[in-house]
């Protein structure tokens, strides 16, 4: 991978103002997405994964939040670089849709309930690609067929509420893909779907990536989905990247105690206890507000006194990064 990454997030922090004062749910996050690569961001609630994706899309709530540090460099089609952390609203609007597309867990957040799905796609390509009416309509049908919606020409006249959950998800993907995005941000796009439909949608996203060479930033809480779709994985905990690695090394030899604990508490990794009962290895406690030191220390079985006092820096090793004082001792 010699060329510069498509998306490079460097030391990103996002601060929210609330009644109780300021909080920083994303602290010093760095990650990059290359063209033709799926970078999965995995974490539990409150890990900062969705706030990070909103920051990239310029969709953070303006009244209550700000990017308080770092940069989000996006390499545009014209070869120039935009810093999305500091881009104007006008520039963000041009990039969203034309170069960067987003899909969500709930398709109705991006579909308009009063327009047919065909009209919505046609409108997007007229706006962003300058297509005329006839061409835009043909493009809509072509996109619906691309996402494997049967009888696409007829379904283009359906309103979103006429469609099943799985079909709506496909329609949203068709809309997102209609302007040939270079970067797709997928925030829990299959979480609300049944597993047999989820399998179809994951396969579809991966096929579209291979065919178009787009980069995908895929946000999920589901390690099974990560194993299925990712090339590279960043594990988030309490607002920080704690480990980032290629998929296979991450699953086969996780280095950070949190990554290991997260994999170990999955039902598929249950162990037998002395009564021959299958039990899980939960992570004790729950996510706690970070005061000082390592955010995971309060729940980490390997934590020492200094883990609670000194925040660990990211350490690089062999194509991966780990944020832990003790990873070499405990690995």
């Amino acid at each position, binding site marked *: 991978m010699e060329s510069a990454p498509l998306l490079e997030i460097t030391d990103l922090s996002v601060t929210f103002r609330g009644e109780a004062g300021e909080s920083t749910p994303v602290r010093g996050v760095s990650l990059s997405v290359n063209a033709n690569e799926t970078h999965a961001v995995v974490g539990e609630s409150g890990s900062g994964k969705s706030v990070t994706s909103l920051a990239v899309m310029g969709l953070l709530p303006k009244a209550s939040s700000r990017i308080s540090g770092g940069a989000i460099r996006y390499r545009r089609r014209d070869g120039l670089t935009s810093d999305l952390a500091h881009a104007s609203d006008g520039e963000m609007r041009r990039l969203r849709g034309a170069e960067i597309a987003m899909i969500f867990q709930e398709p109705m957040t991006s579909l308009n309930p009063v327009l047919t799905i065909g009209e919505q796609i046609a409108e997007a390509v007229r706006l962003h690609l300058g297509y005329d009416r006839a061409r835009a309509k043909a493009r809509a049908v072509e996109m619906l067929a691309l996402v494997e919606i049967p009888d696409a020409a007829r379904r283009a006249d359906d309103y979103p509420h006429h469609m099943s959950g*799985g079909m709506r998800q496909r329609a949203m993907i068709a809309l997102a893909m209609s302007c040939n995005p270079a970067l797709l941000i997928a925030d829990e796009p299959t979480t609300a779907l049944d*597993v*047999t439909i*989820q399998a179809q949608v994951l396969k579809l996203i991966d096929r579209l990536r291979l065919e178009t060479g787009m980069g995908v930033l895929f946000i999920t809480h589901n390690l099974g989905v990560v194993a299925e779709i990712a090339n590279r994985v960043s594990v988030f905990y309490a607002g920080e990247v704690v480990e980032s690695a290629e998929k296979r090394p991450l699953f086969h030899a996780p280095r950070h105690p949190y990554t290991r604990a997260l994999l170990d*508490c999955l039902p598929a990794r249950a162990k037998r206890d002395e009564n021959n009962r*299958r039990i899980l290895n939960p992570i004790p406690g*729950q996510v706690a507000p970070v005061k000082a030191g390592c955010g995971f220390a309060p729940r980490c079985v390997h934590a020492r006194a200094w883990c609670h006092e000194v925040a660990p820096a990211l350490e690089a090793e062999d194509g991966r990064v780990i944020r832990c004082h003790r990873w070499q001792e405990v690995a």
Partner: protein
Amino acid sequence: MDDKENFARPLLETRGLSRAFGAGNRVVRAVQDVDLAVYPGEVLGLVGESGSGKSTIGRLVLRLIEPSAGDIVFEGESIAGISERKLKPFRRKAQMVFQDPFASLNPRLDVEAIIGEALDAHGLYRGARRRARIGDLLEMVGLPASAMGRYPHEFSGGQRQRIGIARALAVEPKLIVADEPVSALDVSVQAQVLNLMQELRHRLGLAMILISHDLDVVELMSDRIAVLYLGRIMEQGPAADIVAAPRHPYTRALIAASPKADPDATRVPVALTGELPSPLSPPSGCVFRTRCPHAQAVCADQVPVLRGEGAHRFACHFDLAPQSLG
């Protein structure tokens, strides 16, 4: 397993259990002709996707909704048609744990009142013993007794689910119906709650109907599993057999589609095509046939009956070659 089948009486049994919603030509047959049994101390897992009828079955067996047809037998007595007054002893013996620990606890009541309500409803632990009992219940689910003075919003999702479990256990039930009890929780917390449920189940000798869309969770927790699709049982049997040697094409598809947290897992390229048919007009014959890679003419004509050897039974016209899923 065989011992149970031969000697023990089921704690709960359904016979031809059916429930339709709607009227006229807009009728959804949410549950059709379901025969299930739960033995004392046993966990029966119900797994299936949306529209499979699994949650409706849970509500039917607790008589939270009324069946359209069929019978429900608890400890040898039919509870399907009896009055609410006569149902009172059953209400104490069978309790529910809900999916959403945020919606299922009254935000205006403190924990003492939430659990106390369940005790009061059955006239249990009156007077001075009430607080002691509530404290014991909280400690049993891994919360301090001091939690009783706090309100639901002061707890995390996992802690609220513990409170929901304590409330269900307050009246010393024999059967718990748990509907997606961990699907709203993060995996690290999910593991805590699943371990708690396992421990309590063994300690208290509880029987459980565990309803979940997550095959891994169901397989971990259950002695036996029933796989549902569009309101009907496709396959049922001992959990290990269902997962290791599934006989029904739908069960195989479900296993193949379930994401595995292993980048090198053998991915069986079944990837079920199509979507769930409209429950308003389910397919004739076998309800799964429109998505089944093995469907033949007979599948449209005849509803397959559950068949098979011993406890492992499946509803398919064909005997598919055994399949190894690695």
